[in-house]
Structure formats: structure tokens, C-alpha cells
């Protein structure tokens, strides 16, 4: 089973989709049950990946290779390292949670809804698995279509605008990225006389510096729009606000990570000199810091609860990109962990909003107040989600942000100083939000009789809370998993970094 484990993980949602097509659209509950079964199965088959993953091994594991389009040099080549393994686990967990949380939220066209989710799930897993650039691109684009429909069909009042904006933005970025991919592919052919999209081979290409910078910017546009980095973030608030709850959850928890993952898997290893170029790193760090602070400041202004969380993603993802371009082990490992953390905590926050939206059908913060009196369980869940996002010690967010700041400090103290202000602002907007919504007296009569969390809703939150606590209290296994791939990345971008560090330590002694 091990040799096809990844294919099984990849195609489980697709197989579920094939069966789903034969279920009549009118039997909604059968469809819901089936979708949840498939999503849970998707999670179960991914479990062996975590248990059998060898932390000590360098390079990729569970690799599968088959010819796909030989005349273009395209292979079906998939495999995982520590980084992608964690992101796949995040994807499968959230696949299940998104399915479970949609039970009551979606009443219309249930079949199409779950079909889109299963397609989306395959696309996302494929993005994290692919070790062939062509294959990656196919999955990368495959994700766009179901997400367009999830936002555009089951979304809020301005759904069509938000959906096409999402589609156009990301597509414009990814076609430019395609040009970068093709340039690299062509250069490989020019230098080695063969066509291949395999990443390990493409890493051998030596580009002349000007060319490498152009390719870097081409990749950058594709990934930065997806992350989204300032100033490419404007599609995100629209998409988040209009998307249905599960759509927002997947968007925040998994989809945005495709961008940061792209930087880690492609930009850094394939274009090490451009990634280490002083000018480029400075620009990216500045954009990240602007994103952190700007996102946080905009959060303070929001009247719409969901929009606030959407902008908080801009701020939190700024930390992730800052960590990546600190280009040292702490920064990168912290960034990956923070990607997981952001998935958990922001995913939870969107679920929290969804729970309330199903009851009240409004997201105006001013409509609420004193909810903690009416819904005590809900108050606790919300508090945990909020604190985890704000980076309270003993919860997951703290570990990630702290490590990133460590890395940033090592790279440039000024960056760290600015980035810290983002942590403070983050605590401010989240605590203020909590205060306005949950604390005080119930001011709005409509809020008096709200039912507390149901068993199904608790089932959605509990695994996420447990995960948040685990990372917060004992993050060591995560850092162990990340150690090897991060080491390889840093060695690739900054050759001799570890020797330099060792010499430094010896000198201090």
C-alpha cells in the first residue's frame, strides 16, 4: 500500500465524486452522508502518511513516478517531504471539517455543492503532492474552477462579482507564472538537451542572473496573488465575505497556503540566487511587513465580522512570507508551522462566524453584544479560536509567530521590530472584536434566544481545538518533521549557512 499511498490520498475524493454522480439530486440527506463519509475516508487514508513518515530521511518520500506525456517530458511524479506532508494533513482534516460544517448551511443544489468540494479537494492535495511542474500547474488551475462555483453559486449577495474577481486575479497571476515555468523548461532543454518538468532536474539549470530575476518575478506574481501579499490582496476580502462558510474555511485554511508553498517548493530551490538577491529579499520583506501592519490596521476599521477575519489573513500571511524570506531555519520552519496554525485558527474563526450567521443571518458586529450570556459553549470556543489567532502562549499561534520573529530578528532587526507591532495590533483587533460581540449585556433582543452549539457543531470544533493545544504545548514533533526539508532549503539558497553558524558558535565559546 505504501507505494501507492499518495495516489490513494489524491484520488479518494475523486472516487467519491464518481459515486456521487449516481446519487439522485433529490435525496439530499443521502448526499450529505455520502459526502461526509468520503471526506472522513479522505482523512483516514491520509493518516498512514503521518505515522509512516520518516523524519530522519532527507529528500522525498512515498514517491510515485509514471510517464504521462512523454513527448513533452511530463511525468506523473508525486512525493512528499516534511513541508508538504504537514500541508496535506491540513488539507484532509479541513476537507472533513468543511463537509461536516456544511450540513445545514447548504440547502440548494446540495449535490453540485459537494461535487465541487470533492473536486477542489483533489486539486489542493495534488498541488501539494506534485513534484513535476506541469502536473503542479494542472492541479493549481484545477482548483480555480470549483472555488469559482462555490463562491459564485452558494455565496452571498455580491457573489458573482467576488467569484469572477477571484478567478481573474489568480488566473492572471498563474499564466504569468506559466511563462516562468516555460522559460526554465526551455533553459533545461538548451543546457541538457532533454525536455523535463521534474523539479529535481530543473534545479540543475543555471540561469544567467538577469533571466533568473525575471523568472523569479514571474513566479512571484503567481504565488503572491495566491498568498495574497500586499498589494495583490484585494480579491481576498471580497471572496471571503461572499463565500459560504465552508468555502471561506477552505480558502483561508488551505488555498492561501498554495501560494506560500509555491515559494518554498519552487521559487527558493529553483531560483536560489534570485531568492537570495539582496534587493529582491528587501522588496519581499517590505511587502510582507506592509501586509502585516496594513492588514491589521484595516481589521481595526471593520464593521463586518467576516471581513475583519479576512483582513487578518492578510496580516497573518505576511508573517508567513516574512519568515520565508528571512531565509534561515527559524524563519522558514516558523513560516511552515504558522501556515498550519493560520489554517487551524482562522479556519476556526470562520467556522465561528458561520455558526452565528446560520442563526442570525447578519455579520454586522454592531448587531451583536453579550452573546457569551446566551451561548456559553460558543463563547469558550470562540475565545480559544481568537486567542490562538492572536498568538497567546500555550496555543499554536504563539509558537509560529515567535519562531518567525526569531528568524526575522536574525536576518534583520528592523524587520523584526516592525513585525512585532503586527502581533500587538493582532491582539488588539481580535480582543476588541471579542469584546464587542461576546461581552457586556445583551443589547439586541434578537440575540436573547439563540441556541448554543449543537453536538455536530462541537464535533467540528473539538478536533481543531485539540490540534491547536497540541501545537501550542508540544510543537517538537512538527519541528522535527520540518528540520530536514528546511535544512535542505537553506543550504540550497545560502550554501554554507550551517557551517557558518557552527563556526560562529565555536568562536563565541
Amino acid at each position, binding site marked *: 500500500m505504501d507505494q501507492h499511498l499518495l495516489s490513494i490520498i489524491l484520488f479518494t475524493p475523486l472516487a467519491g465524486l464518481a459515486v456521487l454522480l449516481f446519487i439522485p439530486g433529490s435525496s439530499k440527506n443521502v448526499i450529505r452522508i455520502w459526502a461526509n463519509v468520503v471526506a472522513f475516508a479522505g482523512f483516514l487514508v491520509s493518516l498512514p502518511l503521518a505515522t509512516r513518515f520518516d523524519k530522519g530521511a532527507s529528500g522525498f518520500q512515498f514517491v510515485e513516478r509514471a510517464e*504521462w*506525456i*512523454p*513527448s*513533452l517530458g511530463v511525468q506523473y511524479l508525486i512525493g512528499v517531504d516534511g513541508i508538504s506532508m504537514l500541508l496535506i494533513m491540513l488539507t484532509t482534516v479541513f476537507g472533513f471539517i468543511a463537509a461536516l460544517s456544511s450540513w445545514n448551511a447548504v440547502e*440548494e443544489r446540495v449535490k*453540485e455543492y459537494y461535487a465541487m468540494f470533492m473536486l477542489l479537494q483533489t486539486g489542493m492535495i495534488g498541488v501539494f503532492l506534485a513534484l513535476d511542474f506541469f502536473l503542479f*500547474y*494542472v492541479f493549481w*488551475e*484545477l482548483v*480555480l*474552477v470549483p472555488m*469559482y*462555483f462555490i463562491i*459564485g*453559486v452558494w455565496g452571498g449577495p455580491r457573489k*458573482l462579482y467576488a467569484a*469572477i474577481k477571484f*478567478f*481573474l486575479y489568480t*488566473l*492572471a497571476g498563474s*499564466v*504569468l507564472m*506559466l*511563462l516562468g515555468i*516555460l*522559460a526554465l*523548461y*526551455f533553459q533545461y532543454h538548451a543546457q541538457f538537451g532533454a525536455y523535463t518538468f521534474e523539479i529535481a532536474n530543473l534545479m540543475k539549470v543555471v540561469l544567467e542572473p538577469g533571466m533568473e530575476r525575471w523568472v523569479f518575478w514571474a513566479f512571484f506574481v503567481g504565488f503572491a496573488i495566491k498568498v495574497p501579499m500586499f498589494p495583490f490582496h484585494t480579491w481576498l476580502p471580497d471572496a471571503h465575505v461572499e463565500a459560504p462558510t465552508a468555502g471561506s474555511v477552505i480558502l483561508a485554511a488551505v488555498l492561501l497556503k498554495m501560494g506560500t508553498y509555491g515559494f518554498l517548493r519552487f521559487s527558493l530551490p529553483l531560483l536560489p540566487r534570485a531568492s537570495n538577491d539582496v534587493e529582491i529579499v528587501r522588496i519581499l520583506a517590505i511587502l510582507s511587513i506592509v501586509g502585516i501592519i496594513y492588514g491589521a490596521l484595516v481589521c481595526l476599521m471593520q464593521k463586518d465580522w467576516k471581513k475583519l477575519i479576512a483582513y487578518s489573513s492578510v496580516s497573518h500571511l505576511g508573517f508567513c512570507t516574512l519568515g520565508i524570506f528571512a531565509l534561515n531555519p527559524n524563519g522558514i520552519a516558523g513560516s511552515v508551522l504558522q501556515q498550519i496554525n493560520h489554517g487551524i485558527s482562522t479556519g476556526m474563526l470562520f467556522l465561528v462566524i458561520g455558526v452565528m450567521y446560520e442563526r442570525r443571518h447578519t455579520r454586522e458586529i454592531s448587531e451583536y453584544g453579550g452573546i457569551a450570556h446566551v451561548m456559553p459553549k460558543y463563547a469558550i470556543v470562540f475565545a480559544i479560536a481568537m486567542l490562538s489567532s492572536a498568538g497567546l502562549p500555550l496555543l499554536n499561534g504563539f509558537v509560529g509567530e515567535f519562531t518567525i520573529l526569531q528568524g526575522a530578528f536574525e536576518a534583520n532587526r528592523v524587520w523584526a521590530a516592525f513585525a512585532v507591532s503586527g502581533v500587538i495590533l493582532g491582539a488588539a483587533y481580535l480582543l476588541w472584536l471579542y469584546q464587542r460581540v461576546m461581552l457586556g449585556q445583551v443589547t439586541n433582543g434578537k440575540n436573547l434566544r439563540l441556541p448554543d452549539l449543537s453536538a455536530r457543531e462541537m464535533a467540528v470544533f473539538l478536533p481543531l481545538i485539540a490540534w491547536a493545544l497540541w501545537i501550542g504545548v508540544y510543537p517538537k514533533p512538527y519541528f522535527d518533521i520540518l528540520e530536514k526539508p528546511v535544512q535542505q532549503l537553506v543550504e540550497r539558497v545560502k550554501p554554507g549557512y550551517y557551517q557558518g553558524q557552527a563556526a560562529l558558535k565555536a568562536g563565541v565559546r
Partner: protein
Amino acid sequence: MSQFYTTTDHFVLAPALMLALFGCAILLFDFLLFPNPKDRKWLTMFLLAGEAFCGYGLWRQHSFLISNGIGEITAFQGSLTMDGFALFFNWIFLIATVVVAIVSYNYLEIEGEHHGEYYALILFAQCGMFFLAAGTDLVTLFIGLELMALCFYVMVGFLRGERRSNEAAMKYLLLGAFSSGFLAYGFSIMYGVSGSTKLSDVAAAFAARDPWDPMILLAVATTSVGLLFKISAAPFHMWAPDAYEGAPTTVTAYLSVASKAASFAFLLRIFMGPLSTSRPVWEPLLAAVAIATMTFGNLAAISQNNIKRLLAYSSISHAGYMLLGLIAGNRTGLNGVAVYVMVYTFMNLGAFLVVVAMRRKGIAGEDVDDLAGLMHKSPGYAMLMLVFLLSLAGIPPTAGFLGKYYIFLSLIETGHYTLAVIGTLYVAVAIYYYFRIVKSMFIPEQFEPAPLSTSLGLRLALGVTGALTLVIGIYPEPFLRMAQTSLMR
């Protein structure tokens, strides 16, 4: 057989001969055997039989080339050349013609203009295309072009009672004749320079001269005008939206794929043949034309409400992309044009077939709004349309992506970075107007209660085009090989 008509000549000509024979036979039989309108379904059968013979002829040529390991068979003292290139395009014409023929019966019945001549015209048009792909002589090519174009002038105006159709045919005829004049003028200069009508002789004569020689410049300019008109490239694209909108939808489908494919075969024969040494002259010219074509096509498509018009503008922009492959001009680029023509044929035919299905008694079904609620009413058609539109936009894993892939790669290989960036950004523009159709299909309101007009032929045709659009996208290897061998010389 005599020295003027050898066995080889017959072997090469056989597919076209079959088409012409069956076309004439249809005209006769329609008149003599099937005076009863109900018997017209036999004409479709008859046409299919003709296509089967034509296909058999092509297949024998194909096997002959492979089994003897040769690149080409020439006939009629070098006026016709059957090579991988000609075969590849002829297969495309054949598939397109069959697809159009089997959906026409039902459609023409609804339009109330069902006449046997229609089937004959389709066959004659395909016969003209045969000569466009296989011709290697200026006169042969010109006759092929006129044969095809004349059939289309008639077919575009086939809805005699409808003024839109009449107007479209008139416009197409006048502008088409005008451009043919330019082309004939260009050809006459080629003849004047070389003293021969054979492409190879003309190429040799052109190669011996300086590319900036005024005669050559004049030949390039006039020939380009004629050819660019035929592929509806800007600034000679004005006829296309009107002709596409006014023509019966099945004819529009045929015109947009088969005629365009044939014109591209013709264009490649000329530009990669006699004019290949004039590349420094026409490359910047064509680059400007390609940019203008993509710009006009994409920007004008945004504001269209009529789907046929929208698809007309989109097909203009596709011509721009195909031109980019010729501009790159290397192996990848030419390969890209072949692949692009192939995938474009299937996806564009498919999209028009859905529009054909929307035409019902009393309902034009041509506006974007007419598709509203299609996902609710007939999800199968809506999903197929989605696949075709995604493919037209070039989103993987559909076939359209591969066409764009080759084109972009060839531009990168030859260092045309600016063109590549412009081309990719227009992909994002294109998705906007294609998704206007998608948006409409997925709107829950139902405006049209009448069921779609389907027939066995239509379902079959949609199945084939839809399956090919997906299969080429997901497992392209055999198709890419086919396109590659088409360029082996």
C-alpha cells in the same frame, strides 16, 4: 492511365474525387430519388458514405506513407503533395464535416430551410479544403480557396427568408471577393518573379533575391492581406462577426473551424514556403497583426450579448494566438499551430453545437441570457458547455491548454517575451467573457420552459467533441504525436 493522369495522381486525388462525386450525386438524387422532404435523412447517410470513402482514401495514403517510410507523395507534376501536414489537416476537415452534417438535419428542419443542396455544398467546401491543405501550386491553391469560399458564400445566406442571413452572405461575398483579388495579385507577382506557379520554384526565385526587393515586398504585402482576411485577423476581421451571426448556426460552426483550419493550412504553406526567406519583412508585420487581432477579438467579445457574435470575436482572438506560433516559426511553434488548430476544432465546434441545441421552434436561443438556468434544466449540456468554454480559455486539464502551451513555449524559445506576456494576459481577459456565459448558465432562474432541441446526431456530435476536448487535455500523448508527425518532412 495516360501520362496526364497517372495511378499516383489518382491515388493522391482519390479523397477529393470522392467528395466531389458524392456531392454531385447528392444534387442529382435529391432531385430524382427523394422528392419527398421526409426522405432527406437519406442524404445525411449518403454524405456519411462519401466521407467514409474519403476517409478510406486518406487512410490508404497514410499507410502508404508509413509503410514506405517516405515523407510525401506528389502528383500532377508537383501541383498536389500529400504529406503528413496535408493528411493531418484533412482528418480535421473530415471530422468537422461529419460533425456538422449529423447535427444539421434537425436544425435545418427547425429553421424551415431544409434543402438537399446543403449537403452537397458541405462536401464541395470540404473538397476545396482538400486542395488548400494538399496544394503546392499557386493555381491549385487558388482554385481550392475559391471552391471553398463560394460554397460558404451560399451557405452563409442559406436562410433565404431572413434578412440577417442575406446581409451576412452579401458582406462576406463582397469582402471575400475583394481579398481574393489581393491574393490573386500577390500570386501574379510571384509568378512574374519566378516564371512558375509551383511553390518550390517560387521559393527558389524568392530566395535568390534580396528580401527587401520592391517586387518581393509587394508580393508579401498583397498576399498577406488576402491570407489575413481569410483567417479573419485584424484589421481584416470585420466580416467575421456579421457572417457568423447571420449564418445558420451549423454553418457558423463549420465556417469557424473548418474554413479557419483550411485557411491556416494555406497560410502555413505560403509563409513557410515561398515567403519563408522574407521572414525579416513579414515577422514584425505579423507580430503587429497578431497583437491587434488578440486585442480586437478579446476586447470586442467582452460586450457582446449574442453568443454567436461573442464566439465570433473569440475565434478572431484564437486566430491571433495561432499566428503567434507562425511568428515564433520554430518547430515548437509550427507544431503548436497544428495542435492549436486541432483542439480549436473540437472545442469551438462543441461550443457552437450547444448553441445549435438552444435553437428551438420560436426561440432563437442566441443570447447569453437565453442560457439562463441551463444548469438546472439540462445539466449535461451545461457541463459540456463549461468544458468547451474552459478549453477555449485554455485552462488545464482541457485540450485548449495544450494549444496555448505550445504557442507560449515557442515564443519563449525564440525570445519573443513581450508577445508571450501579451498573449498570457489576454487569457485572463478571455476568461471574463467566457464566464459571462457560464454565469448565465448557473443562474437559478428559468426563463425558457421549452426543452432543448436534441437529436441523436446532436448528442453523438456533442459526445465526440466533448470527449475529445477532455481526452486530449488529460491524455494528449497520441494526439501530440500525430501533430508532430504532420510536420516531418
